[in-house]
């Protein structure tokens, strides 16, 4: 009797479920484990014997200090990341850029290993021999405490980055196959989706596997979660002598760890760390001394504050960059009436001698009036409908009107500072921001862009 009474509602519920539940199109497979934050390292034992595996000797600003097989495998690991790696360039075949899938597994590249190591040493290397049609394989501990990937020597491994090398029998794209293998290391088995990177057999020579498919992203997000809105995000890094300045958002006010790639080959995969680093400007800026053991690679920010432990995206880090330190955006601009925040930038050079720097701001309301201003210090103060991200003293430049696209431009004349204290000289670092009118945007009727930290050189 009870059953009879329950059946109609149960049937109705089932019918409702069938009607409202979207059909699942995913075909990814979980192996049942995940890597914790201590297993984010990736190293390469570059024993690849094919000329084609190491003939890419073109420097890439997004993968500083690495070439050939090491660079190809590094690219494969960042494809699983939560954000673009640097500006995302480095793979001509990726429309959105490396890391554009937002898969939310951020790895720390730890450079060169001196051997293949053991399972759990998180290395990639070539294996002498051949097992028929097996291209490569990844061994993993079932409790998520690490992995090791081998590529059989009987295939020709090609390091890219060009997409258009002529496919030949027995030639395989190292970056593409490494992207697949790293997916195994992260806890994905083989997908039944033929378009997925985790499908068991690569199309042609595996080049298309470089770019994750939505099925791969769905799989990794099911294991590691989607990106938390409060996750720290690095949006830029600038080296000035022995100081590294990192710009981004959601850094902890205190207690940040900054992870670097080790400078020397070998090691055990543990990142070089700067501990207990404080942030400034509302968690958008970090200044740290670069540890002597740190080398070119990438930087990440780890924090245990807030909702458990979190690790940022990986950002390229050149330990000894040539030329002037890179400009750096920082501070969170608030959206204006156009629905977007206004963002600062600079074009042409940072050379005092050339005197050709032009400031710009994009994302303001069309035709809005505003003023660029600058300061030797950073700050963080709510003012009007936005934030002042400079600390003063302030130097005000000429008034400018944005164009119909919301973009304002102002060529700087470094020989004519608004006041003597605002003289920009070689070796100095200044902070720039754009104030603009936006009456419909909020009660105060004006707002600010984010800020630009801009070093100047000879």
């Amino acid at each position: 009797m009870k059953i009879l009474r329950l059946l109609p509602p149960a049937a109705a519920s089932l019918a409702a479920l069938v009607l409202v539940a979207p059909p699942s199109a995913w075909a990814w497979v979980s192996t049942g484990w995940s890597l914790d934050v201590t297993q984010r390292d990736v190293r390469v034992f570059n024993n690849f014997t094919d000329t084609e595996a190491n003939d890419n000797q073109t420097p890439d600003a997004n993968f500083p200090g690495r070439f050939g097989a090491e660079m190809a495998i590094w690219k494969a690991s960042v494809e699983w990341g939560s954000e673009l790696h640097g500006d995302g360039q480095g793979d001509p075949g990726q429309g959105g850029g490396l890391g554009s899938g937002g898969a939310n597994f951020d790895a720390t590249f730890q450079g060169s290993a001196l051997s293949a190591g053991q399972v759990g040493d998180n290395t990639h290397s070539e294996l002498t021999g051949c097992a028929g049609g097996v291209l490569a394989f990844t061994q993993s501990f079932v409790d998520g405490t690490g992995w090791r990937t081998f590529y059989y020597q009987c295939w020709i491994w090609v390091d890219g980055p060009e997409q258009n090398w002529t496919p030949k029998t027995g030639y395989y794209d190292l970056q593409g196959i490494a992207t697949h293998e790293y997916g195994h290391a992260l806890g994905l088995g083989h997908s039944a989706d033929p378009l997925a990177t985790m499908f068991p057999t690569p199309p042609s020579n595996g080049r298309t596997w470089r770019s994750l498919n939505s099925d791969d992203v769905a799989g990794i997000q099911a294991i590691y979660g989607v990106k938390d809105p409060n996750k720290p995000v690095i949006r830029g890094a600038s080296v000035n002598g022995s100081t590294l300045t990192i710009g981004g958002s959601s850094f902890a006010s205190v207690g940040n760890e900054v992870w670097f790639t080790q400078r020397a080959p070998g090691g055990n995969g543990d990142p070089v760390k700067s501990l207990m680093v404080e942030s400034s400007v509302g968690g958008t800026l970090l200044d740290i001394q670069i540890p002597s053991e740190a080398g070119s690679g990438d930087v990440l920010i780890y924090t245990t504050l807030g909702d458990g432990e979190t690790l940022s995206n990986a950002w390229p880090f050149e330990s000894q960059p040539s030329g002037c330190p890179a400009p750096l955006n920082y501070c969170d601009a608030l959206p204006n009436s156009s629905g977007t925040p206004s963002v600062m930038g600079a074009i042409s050079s940072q050379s005092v001698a050339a005197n050709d720097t032009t400031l710009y701001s994009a994302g303001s309301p069309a035709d809005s009036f505003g003023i660029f201003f600058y300061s030797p210090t950073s700050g963080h103060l709510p003012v009007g409908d936005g934030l002042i991200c400079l600390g003063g003293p302030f130097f005000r430049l000429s008034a400018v009107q944005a164009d119909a696209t919301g973009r304002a431009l102002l060529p700087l004349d470094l020989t004519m500072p608004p006041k003597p204290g605002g003289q920009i000289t070689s070796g100095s670092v200044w902070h720039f921001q754009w104030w603009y009118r936006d009456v419909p945007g909020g009660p105060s009727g004006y707002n600010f862009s984010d800020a630009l930290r801009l070093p100047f050189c000879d």
Partner: protein
Amino acid sequence: MTSVLATALSLVLGSALCWASIEKLTLPQMVQRIDNAIYGEILAKRVEAVALPDGSGEMFFTTLTIKGNSVLNNAASTVEVSYPGGFLDEEHGVFNSEEPSADDVRIGNRVVAFYKWSPDMGGGFASNALYASHGGLFRTFVSRKGETIVQGRGPGYAVATNQVLSGLEKQAQELYAKRKR
């Protein structure tokens, strides 16, 4: 379900799983690459550990003994075919995603296996390599009509769809004859 699986797998202390990618093959490509193929019964299975050079640990290989007839020339034979992966016991070994499932390599199963001699499958281990690991082994069953059906594995595999063994043998033998010419 995932956590249950993880827990179950974690009980295998000290063991590791092994995942891989394999060559995409059509039947003509497979026949072009192999030494031979056999249709027969799995009589035995053993696992061996092989030390890698430079202190890089061990690899594990599973070897199947299959008795039957060549798919390429019908000659009766008994062959040993190997693939990377396998467990010596519950605590020592490597599971490889490319290896056939435990159900596929059960002793007594009748299978079609494509293989090629490899003097070094890793760590100096020499054997007939099951070509493309799980991609080189196909289970069979006998239909109500008495036909032996070879079970395909889908796109990307040498036998993509189910087909009658005699038909597969005919195709493979024609391809092999062309290859010999």
